[in-house]
């Protein structure tokens, strides 16, 4: 199967007062056509930066220092802005975390959707406006014709996020990236938005890259999960295998801290400690200082990512743990 999105050795650095730090460090992964990939990790692990890099939206002081991002075989790193613009919003679209801040407060919702269509397709203003209304209906907004004339602040958070999704799917992209689309919403609305994303994916055959810090959100739906920690991939696995047996202590910790009672496992406290600052990474394994299973050897060498068939992990004790 040839990948829809193929990311290889991606490194994104940010210039800071303490020198350049790598927010994403030598990351490689694939998303197949129509596939649902979840990227999970605590705050600051580099999830958003990965998504922005794919969209070509990394701005100064950040830059893609090395690596390759291919969409349908076409290299995006180094692509001129003019060509990148034709890909954004048309073949690959993104939904952001804060639906209020992510919509223009002085523009009508319908206009914000229609303009995405008009810049990519040769349609009249009237046709684009009509399609915007249809899209609002598609994402489950009642009275879409009326809502299209509303301003963002006249809508609830859930409605705004639906509008954001309508905007993102306006040109039927092959890949939809959703960066923590439900974090700012309350629990019932979260479930509705996740249902919407699933049904849209089925209906339009889009691939979905869902970024979240909540493993519970990807548990039932994602095909595969990629776990990130401090800019690195620490584990990649089909969702079922990851939930059955995580190979990395960090993934295990994330699994334990899922609050969802439906997944019946004893809820342990969240992983102790915090993600290290990128400018002050610990020696050896980046997760070492927080790891229950760390041994002295873990602090000497950075564990490489090792692949086992469809799975991969970056822990030197993986096999011991798998047996434990």
């Amino acid at each position, binding site marked *: 199967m040839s990948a829809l999105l193929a990311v290889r050795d991606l490194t994104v650095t940010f210039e800071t007062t303490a020198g350049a730090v790598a927010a994403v460090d030598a990351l490689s992964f694939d998303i197949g056509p129509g596939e649902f990939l979840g990227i999970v990790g605590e705050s600051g692990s580099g999830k958003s930066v990965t998504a922005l890099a794919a*969209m070509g*939206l990394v701005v100064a002081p950040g830059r893609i220092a090395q690596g390759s991002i291919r969409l349908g075989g076409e290299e995006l790193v180094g692509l001129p*802005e003019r060509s990148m*613009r*034709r*890909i*954004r*919003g*048309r073949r690959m*679209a*993104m939904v*952001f975390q*804060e639906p209020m*801040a*992510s*919509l*223009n*407060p*002085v*523009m009508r919702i319908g206009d914000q959707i229609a*303009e*995405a269509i008009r*810049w*990519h397709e040769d349609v009249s203003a009237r046709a684009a406006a009509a399609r915007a209304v249809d899209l609002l209906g598609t994402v489950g907004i009642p009275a879409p014709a009326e809502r299209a004339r509303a*301003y963002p*602040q*006249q809508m609830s958070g859930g409605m705004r996020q639906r509008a*954001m999704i309508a*905007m993102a799917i306006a040109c039927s992209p092959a890949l939809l990236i959703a960066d923590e689309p439900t974090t700012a919403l309350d629990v019932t609305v979260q479930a509705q938005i996740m249902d919407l994303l699933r049904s849209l994916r089925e209906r339009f055959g889009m691939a979905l890259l869902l970024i979240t810090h909540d493993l519970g959100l990807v548990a039932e739906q994602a095909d595969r999960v990629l776990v990130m920690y401090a800019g690195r991939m620490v584990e990649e696995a089909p969702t079922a295998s990851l939930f059955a047996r995580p190979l990395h202590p960090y993934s295990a910790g994330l699994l334990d801290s899922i609050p969802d009672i439906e997944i019946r496992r004893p809820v342990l406290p969240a992983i102790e400690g915090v993600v290290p600052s990128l400018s002050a990474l610990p020696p050896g394994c980046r997760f070492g200082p927080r790891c229950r299973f760390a041994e002295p050897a873990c602090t000497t060498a950075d564990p490489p990512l090792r692949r086992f068939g469809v799975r991969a992990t970056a822990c030197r004790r993986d096999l011991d743990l798998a047996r434990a």
Partner: protein
Amino acid sequence: MAGYIAWRLVSAVPVILLVTLISFSIMSLVPGDPAAIIAGATATDAEIADLRVALGLDRPFLTRLVHWYGDLLSGDLGRSILLQRPVAEAIAERLPVTLALGAYALVLTLVFGVGLGVVAAVRQNTWVDQICMTVAVLGVSIPNLWLALLFVFLFAVTLGWFPTGGYVPFGEDAVGALVALTLPAISLALMQVGLLARMTRSAMLEVLRQDFVRTARAKGLPGWFVVLRHALGNALIPLVTVMGIILSLMISGTVVIESVFSLPGMGRLIVNAIQRRDYPVIQGGLMLIATALVLVNLVVDLLYAWLDPRVRYAD
């Protein structure tokens, strides 16, 4: 929205009443006998007495006030002592010059102020930004008067591109009028350009780092469109308030500029009236300027509501 407009219009009425009251009172507030001051040191007692009657100063304050408001309603601002003609007529003749100068300077201010600010913000921390902001700082810190004189010397006296002063009515020669007003308008605009450019830059920087700008880019819109439609559309809202200040500064700036370029506008009318103590003209002029300021603020508030749906739809 309609309710808001109505409320703002109604609330401007007491302010305008107060303004007219103050304009009227200045003659009674000057220390000593206004008639004697106006008539001058060489006047005889009889002349002063006549003047007092002509100005209506022999009647009680309240009677005069009622008359003043009555006349005001019928558009009568009294007679100029100096010009020997109705004040309203003198103002009607001078006002178009000032309005033309102000409109010209306002257009220049908006185009260059907003333009420089947007370019500087988009190219933040580059040499382009530095140049734009240097121009802005110079514009703010160089006194209008000095700059106006410099322009007259350079472009009018030395290069001969523009007249050194004077005015051609638009009705007679529109191009000539524009040429005659160019140097005055530039001089008047420059200080405001600097102010507006700096305000635009900071407002744009504030907006450009917001999430919805990233959303606009994620839709695949071209960079210039994101800047003008999405970023500037939001940055204009705080700038409207600045425009109120800028217009007020410009109204006072016209007085200086009209004198330097010998333009027969309102500013010069009032300056001359003050020098010669022509109270009826001073009163009429002050009232007009103050009313203009009130109206500017009214328009700014309405513009604010028009630009920002969060104000428009807040009930």
